[in-house]
């Protein structure tokens, strides 16, 4: 837990010229034999899809930072780089603080295990200790509003119940940095409001938040600053209002089919 003094920190997240290239072979060899035959013939062509193209940005501690752009612009890739799921092909990522992401909420849930067993499993997947989870178990169950079903296997849960369970686990601990990818639409209105209240609580305690969303009003309301990604490049950056305005102006000219 080094370096947690916000006074002396200039950034919570810094990206310098980050490039992410997804390799894809046009004629990918799917078997060993094919691979060696092609290798001998020198017939392996690898192409790269550049998902992020020299993105540089600095997100300040405690700030809520928005990322907008069309589908395939590289927004999710950006979050995955910050979450350390993808290692940048070039460039440098620096992160001050522990990162929690609301990507893939409930990934790793096992349908045959009970709600409680899945809380332990998912919480451990997020890097928390068994002791932490035990301590927060009651709070998690209460937040998910699943007191009556917590010992039933989650294959019997509805989609909403499963999502609530995932959120409750993910939000049990205040992270230094929180990554949100278009997930606020899950669950009913009441539960959503509870999540938003929890986010705000985190933020007042100093959590830095990065939000990816297609909802421009949400970005404008929640974020202080934002960037607009287009085909992996930063088209605009600045205050959320400015960036949203620039983005809406462009989409008004060229209607977004998606």
């Amino acid at each position, binding site marked *: 837990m*080094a*370096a947690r*003094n916000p006074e*002396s*920190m*200039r950034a919570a997240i810094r990206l310098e010229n980050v490039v992410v290239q*997804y*390799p894809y072979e046009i004629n990918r060899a*799917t*078997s*060993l*034999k094919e*691979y060696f035959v092609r290798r001998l013939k020198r017939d392996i062509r690898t192409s790269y899809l550049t998902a992020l193209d020299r993105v540089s940005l600095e997100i300040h501690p405690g700030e809520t930072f928005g990322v907008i752009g069309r589908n395939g612009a590289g927004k999710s890739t950006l979050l*995955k780089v910050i*979450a*350390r*799921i*993808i*290692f*940048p092909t070039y*460039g*440098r*990522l*620096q*992160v*001050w*603080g*522990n*990162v929690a*992401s609301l*990507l*893939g909420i409930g*990934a*790793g849930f*096992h349908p*045959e*295990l009970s709600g409680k*067993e899945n809380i*332990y*499993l998912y919480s*451990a*997947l*997020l*890097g*928390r*200790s*068994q002791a932490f989870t035990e301590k927060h178990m009651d709070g998690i169950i209460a937040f998910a509003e699943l007191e009556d079903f917590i010992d039933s*296997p989650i294959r019997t849960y509805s989609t909403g119940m499963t999502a609530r369970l995932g959120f409750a686990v993910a939000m049990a601990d205040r992270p*230094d940095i929180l990554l949100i990818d278009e997930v606020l639409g899950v669950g009913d209105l009441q539960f959503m409001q509870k999540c938003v209240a929890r986010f705000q609580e985190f933020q007042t305690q100093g959590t830095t938040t990065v939000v990816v969303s297609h909802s421009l009003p949400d970005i404008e309301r929640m974020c202080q600053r934002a960037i607009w990604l287009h085909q992996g490049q930063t088209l605009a950056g600045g205050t959320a209002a400015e960036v949203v305005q620039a983005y809406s102006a462009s989409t008004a000219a060229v209607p977004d089919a998606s």
Partner: protein
Amino acid sequence: MTEKALQQEQAGTRPYYDSAAPRNRVADELREVLRYRDLVRNLVRRNVTARYKRSVLGVFWTLLDPLATMLTMAVVFTALFAKSIPGYPVFLLSGIVIWNFFSQASTQAMMDFVYSGSLVVQVYMPRSVFAFSSIGTHLVNLLLASIPLFLIAIFVGTPITPALLFLPVSLLLVALFTLGTGLLVSALAVFFADMINIFNIALQLLMFLSGVFFSVDAMPAALQKIIFLLPTYQMVTIFRYPIYIGQLPPLDSLLYFSGWTLVMLALGLYVFTRLSDMYAYRV
């Protein structure tokens, strides 16, 4: 540490994570697995309990399943080999128990990783937790399968000797050897789906060559020489000796297998971590 990094640390702003920091991939991976040890523990629990969740007998199947297989094999093979190998059921079962550990743990390490799909793409965790947890899972299964094994040993009248105290050492070596193998095949299987089938066939072939079912004494001398070189044959030997013969394993088997364990572990860790930046694109 570079001067700049030093300055930053003194200013209290050393990053939690820096992609440009020098990486020691193997050490980083092992440190992260240690940090995620509770995840490994939870995955082991999931693997052991979830499998039989819907059955009436539940976890008892982990005990009954190998028992049934062992008894079937014992009946069939005893009829074939009983005359040439005294105390044959114990010879056979000790071989099957350790072989199943090796083949099932390494296979599951590979399958769990290849089919972890959404997990590896959506959540950060040290990728080798799947290999570690499948070793843990099958160590639990091995302990459970040992209960019928020792009951049968007592029933058949195999002497119980202090040599059994050596078994944890044998097991540790086998577990590390299996971990190395599991990591290696996991990494390769991500890039070549064929690896899954190739490894399966290799395991079947190795099982027959590793003296699980019959003593290699019955084989032609030339073949014996090759078999002695197989690490899996020595693996079976160092586990079987304390149980079946009631003596410490031969020193040359032990040293030879230890050498293989080191090589496989180093190779598995090296290849797995070397390729790990690519998994998020491939799995």
